[in-house]
């Protein structure tokens, strides 16, 4: 997918801008707080229908304005032109339009414009809490597999119902057997989630080490990725049927504990993805540069997965991640990235990109909400 042009009105500190993008590499440079990230956020909103920064639409609004309007003109791999428009007003709330038709179910839009984002918020992905890594898997797999998104929505719904029921059972208001229909749905949808996650992780472990070596100067690092589930070890060796049986058994084993805690302790909502380097998990005190290189390698595999499964090149959004890398490394990376998909990079240091084979049309200066090529 290629984003050809973007119109932004009253979004954060951007008054009204129209940007025509390069089909490969776009570098948005400028001082902090000028609106570089807002451009990436606007692109992300069109693709995912939610922000990666804010929870509420109200705070996107430019000061003292009552509506905002973001419109993107895209070209798909088979040459189709697509327009997505995100419109928010204080009066009517949020509305999204696809080729001028109002989108009723936002989940229908997910995956149409695949995006891969790497921002400062992702830095804890390697060593932070497991919820970060589950979110990473969920956003990626929902974009590529519509059935994953629907299984995830049903799973979360059934989980909320089950947890409510656990409270009622603890208070003796309901008998434990009333859990049965919810458990069945949790197992059915949960094993669907696990199946997709395992397939992706197998792809990831095959590609990640090679990618990491390509962009890192360290050649003999050993990188491993594994899926850790509280249902079972080595789920990847089991059939769907076996996973369902193990899941059901584990839910029953934990039943009394779950009733006491009024919460479900077994299932993919508690699973994790473990990254190891030379046999050890990543630690928060490791080198920031190494962590960044690793994350970039990870995002590149993510992009490859999208390309292979969704048959559409993703948009790569790289938010201010090149700070500590030197010019040679950056030049090398840009060459590599440009082959994967259209890329949008924000940076405060334009001069670091001089080495990369780029022209004037690849650079955009962002200054106080104005964007100039």
């Amino acid at each position, binding site marked *: 997918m290629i984003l050809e042009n973007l119109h932004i009105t009253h979004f954060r500190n951007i008054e009204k801008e129209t940007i025509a993008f390069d089909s490969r590499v776009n570098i948005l440079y400028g001082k902090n707080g000028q609106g570089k990230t807002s451009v990436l956020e606007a692109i992300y909103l069109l693709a995912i229908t939610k922000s990666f920064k804010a929870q509420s639409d109200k705070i996107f609004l430019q000061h003292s304005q009552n509506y905002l309007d973001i419109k993107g003109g895209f070209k798909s791999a088979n040459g189709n032109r697509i327009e997505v428009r995100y419109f928010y007003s204080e009066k009517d709330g949020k509305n999204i339009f696809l080729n001028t038709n109002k989108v009723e*179910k936002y*989940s*229908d839009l997910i*995956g149409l414009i695949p995006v891969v984002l790497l921002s400062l918020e992702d830095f804890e992905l390697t060593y932070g809490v497991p919820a970060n890594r589950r979110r990473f898997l969920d956003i990626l797999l929902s974009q590529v597999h*519509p*059935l994953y*998104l*629907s299984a995830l929505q*049903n799973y979360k*719904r*059934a989980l*909320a*119902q*089950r947890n*409510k*029921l656990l409270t*009622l059972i603890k208070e003796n208001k*309901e008998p434990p057997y*009333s859990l*049965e*229909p*919810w458990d*069945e*749905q949790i197992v059915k949808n949960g094993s669907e989630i696990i199946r997709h996650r395992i397939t992706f992780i197998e792809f990831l472990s095959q590609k990640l080490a090679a990618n990491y070596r390509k962009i890192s100067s360290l050649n003999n690092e050993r990188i491993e990725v594994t899926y850790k589930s509280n249902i079972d070890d080595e789920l990847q060796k089991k059939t769907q049927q076996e996973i369902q049986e193990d899941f059901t058994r584990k839910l029953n084993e934990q039943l009394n504990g779950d009733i006491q805690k009024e919460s479900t302790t077994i299932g993919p909502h508690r699973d994790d993805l473990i990254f190891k380097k030379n046999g050890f998990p990543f630690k928060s005190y490791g080198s920031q540069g190494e962590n960044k290189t690793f994350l970039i390698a990870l995002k590149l595999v993510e992009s490859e997965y999208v390309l292979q499964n969704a048959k559409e090149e993703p948009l790569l959004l790289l938010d201010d991640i090149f700070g500590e890398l030197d010019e040679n490394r950056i030049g090398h990376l840009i060459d590599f990235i440009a082959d994967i998909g259209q890329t949008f990079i924000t940076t405060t240091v334009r001069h670091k990109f001089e080495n990369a084979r780029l022209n004037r049309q690849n650079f955009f200066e962002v200054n106080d909400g104005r964007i100039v090529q």
Partner: protein
Amino acid sequence: MNTLGIDALDTLINQLSKLPGIGHKTAQRLALFILKSEPAYSEALAGAIIKLKQETRLCTRCFNIAESELCSICRSPQRDNHTLCVVEDIVDVMAIESSNEYKGLYHVLGGVISPLAGIMQNDLHMKELFERVEKEPIKEILLALNPSTEGEATMLYISRQLKESPVRITRIASGVPIGSHLEYVDAATIGRAILSRQDL
């Protein structure tokens, strides 16, 4: 809200805007239409509304809408009393009836199980359903609840409760709508339809 300070008009607008799908603007337009119409029309409309409530009630057997103790479907000798279709609401009876394909009887649950909404099996016409299975000559239960998480759970609950019973339990198929093009059907529905494909 803009009003002309005319009490009778404001009261009608207020009542109309409580109807589902009717906002304040539409309620205004409807009220003004009634205001401008012949008195005979407004009397007929008011009469129809009152009559609806006075002359209908819920069928004591299946909880469909009825004019007497039993609804017209339960009373009809043409219906097949070996098959029972379980639905969420009266509107679903209307939808299935409009297909002219179903000849059996109904049972309206009045909702689906949802602990979060405070609705459990005892808040629905569930006990009455199991009593009917015992007393009536039912051979098949067709579950036609919406395929939401709650609808699925309710169908599972019913089928588990009737595990020991000899009745056949079926559920309506879900998949690609008739007459629609595959390219316009959402991907999750197509995915499900492919997973539950049938031999030809």
